[in-house]
């Protein structure tokens, strides 16, 4: 099965076959991570740049480990401010880095569409590590891998995503990916944090957490950015927790066989109660491990390792 993607910019429009290929490869790499010597020579000689225009710790580290486990050479380029405040355009920065002969760019950027813009003028292969509120494909892939590991499938499952859907690239990528894989997706959050016409993405929309959780197989709890209260989108964190916080009591509404997920970093006691985060049914730390495996799979497949039609 040939892998169809030159870049991974998002999960919208990515085929079921390509997602399966990534998840299967990730399962294999997951075994590598459990070995005493956690390194394979797959990407020896390949140079990967982590180009991070927005603060991130875990995604950057996860990609860094993934690249190193594959024996690629890795360069970290992190800038706190925007390209504008640095006085150099994004395009110039990328061209300068590319002039040093790199092969792949893993990029995070606060502006939606920046990775797509990058592919318009760059010769590198691009992996989106989160762009604005648009997409965060590797997070959704690792979420899907974690679900598949527990249930053995994605098809036919009911997944509920709870929280700030408006600003969440994780939610958007999960919706596209899960829908493609045959899962049914519900979203639940305060009406001020739901984007307009979101139902057209093919999701069930709830504002009542009890109805949303009822009979679901998976609850994926999004981080609530604390500044949402300051910007007037929420009256208080207290009320958010009352209305949408995932507690062990609410958890009982889920299917008997269920898992709890969170992309991190968590605000314990706000969107998720501590005992829920640490419960037996929580796969939150598995998600983190799977993140490395999924990113290894993506780096490997994008580089062309999975294609039988190498040009």
């Amino acid at each position, binding site marked *: 099965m040939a892998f169809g993607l030159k870049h991974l910019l998002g999960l*919208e429009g990515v085929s079921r076959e390509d997602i399966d290929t990534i998840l299967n490869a990730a399962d294999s790499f997951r075994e590598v991570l459990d070995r005493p010597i956690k390194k394979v020579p797959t990407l020896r000689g390949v140079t990967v740049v982590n180009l991070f225009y927005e603060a991130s710790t875990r995604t950057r580290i996860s990609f860094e480990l993934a690249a190193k486990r594959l024996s690629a050479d890795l360069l970290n380029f992190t800038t706190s401010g*925007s*390209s*504008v405040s640095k006085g150099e*355009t*994004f*395009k110039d920065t990328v061209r300068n880095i590319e002039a040093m002969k790199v092969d792949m760019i893993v990029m995070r*950027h*606060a*502006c*939606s*569409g*920046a990775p*797509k*813009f990058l592919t*318009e003028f760059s010769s590198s292969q691009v992996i989106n590590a989160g*762009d*604005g*509120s*648009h*997409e965060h494909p590797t997070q959704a892939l690792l979420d899907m891998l974690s679900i598949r590991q527990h249930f053995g499938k994605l098809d036919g499952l009911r997944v509920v995503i709870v929280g700030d859907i408006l*600003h969440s*690239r994780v939610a*958007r990528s999960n919706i596209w990916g899960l829908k493609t894989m045959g899962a049914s997706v519900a979203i639940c959050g305060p009406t001020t944090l739901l*984007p*307009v*016409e*979101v139902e*057209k*993405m093919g999701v069930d929309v709830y504002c009542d957490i009890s109805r949303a959780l009822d009979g679901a197989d998976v609850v994926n709890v999004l981080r609530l950015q604390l500044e949402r209260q300051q910007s007037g989108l929420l009256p208080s964190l207290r009320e958010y927790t009352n209305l949408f916080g995932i507690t062990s009591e609410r958890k009982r509404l889920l299917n008997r066989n269920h898992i709890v997920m969170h992309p991190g970093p968590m605000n314990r006691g706000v969107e998720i109660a501590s005992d829920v985060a640490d419960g037996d049914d929580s796969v939150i730390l598995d998600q983190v491990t799977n993140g490395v495996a999924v990113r290894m799979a993506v780096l490997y497949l994008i580089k062309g390792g999975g294609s039988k039609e190498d040009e």
Partner: protein
Amino acid sequence: MSKSHLKVIAGGRVIDPMSGVDCRADVYIEDSKIAKIETGSLFSKKDMKSYESGECFWAEGFIVTPGLIDLHVHLREPGRESVETVASGALAAAAGGFTAVCCMPNTTPPIDNQETVRFVLDRAADASVKVYPIGAITKGRSGQQLAEIGDLVAAGAVAISDDGSPVESAAVMRRALAYAKMFDIPVVSHAEDMSLSAGTHMNEGYVSTTLGIKGNPPISEEICIARDILLADYTASRLHVAHVSTKGAVELIRYAKRNGVNVTAEATPHHFTLTDDLIAERFDTNLKMNPPLRTKKDVESVIAGLQDGTLDCIACDHAPHSTEDKDVEFDLAPNGIIGLETSLGLAITHLVKPGLLSWSDLVERMSTNPARIMGLDGGRLKKGSPADITVIDPEAVWKVNVDKFRSKSRNSPYNGKRLTGRAIMTVVNGRVVYQAV
């Protein structure tokens, strides 16, 4: 471009909605004025021999109209001469078939005082087309204190606007409308409720939801238009609404006109040809402007508004930006596209050719009405009026090529697009200022 003066444009189909002419006729020019429109004893091609070369233009197969007028352009001078000047913008206008433009005051410094009006008029003195400055409503375009509007009008401003920004305070807008009435000029409203649209980069809708880009809701424009219509009614003043882009806005203006409010309005070519879903293709910053590209139903409403006259005119909101400024991440790019050299072609291709607008209606929307709204001496082909004339080849098929634009800027989303219909000659005061080769 010929040195000798044009004396007759013969053999063309002359359309002048103002005098109800739409037939084969010959237009005679004398002393930079229209001498007569001859519909009786017609010129034949043989008669050309009695004229010197350049004195007679044979326009058979072409459409001859009063000079087109765009009442909403940004010429960037003073302040950003690297992207456009009065001279380069006027050249672009001439190439697009326009004989006059009204330029917005959001320059640096803004046109909020007599000195700057005079400066622009001075630059315009030897420009290819007529340039009429629009003065600012408020000092520094800051929305606080009224500019010296009497002074601005005395110096030559034809209207006032804080275009680029709305007048946020209803009280200030009320005073502007009331005050402008003394000078019989329209107040041009850039309608936007900033509390709803600050920090947005595209239309709010399904596309902004999937792209995760902060959206500008249609109600931002509609709330402000509703407010300004009520204020115009209350003060019994003249309101002109710039760049109407939503279905709701068209409906509000239609309602206001039915109820006798003194309101006029314009639509841009991009708001009747493009939709927000195009942004998803590659985040092209030449699809970023304010108001933003809306949806299919909005485009249909804007076209319906142009058809039934709710929207009086087509104005392109020509907004030059440098390639450097536009070649950035979508969120960081400035709003605006250039339009003078594509406006007529887009209107013919998308409105006239599909039968949505008659030729006569098109001329009314692009010449008669802009002249009437701004109180300009133009927009008609009548004995004694200035010989401002546009000759249009209605069948010319051409490909937009930004590298050939007269404008100093290149920020057009239509580059490479095939259009039908264009100006082949533009005449200002009897002088040929543009002729297609």
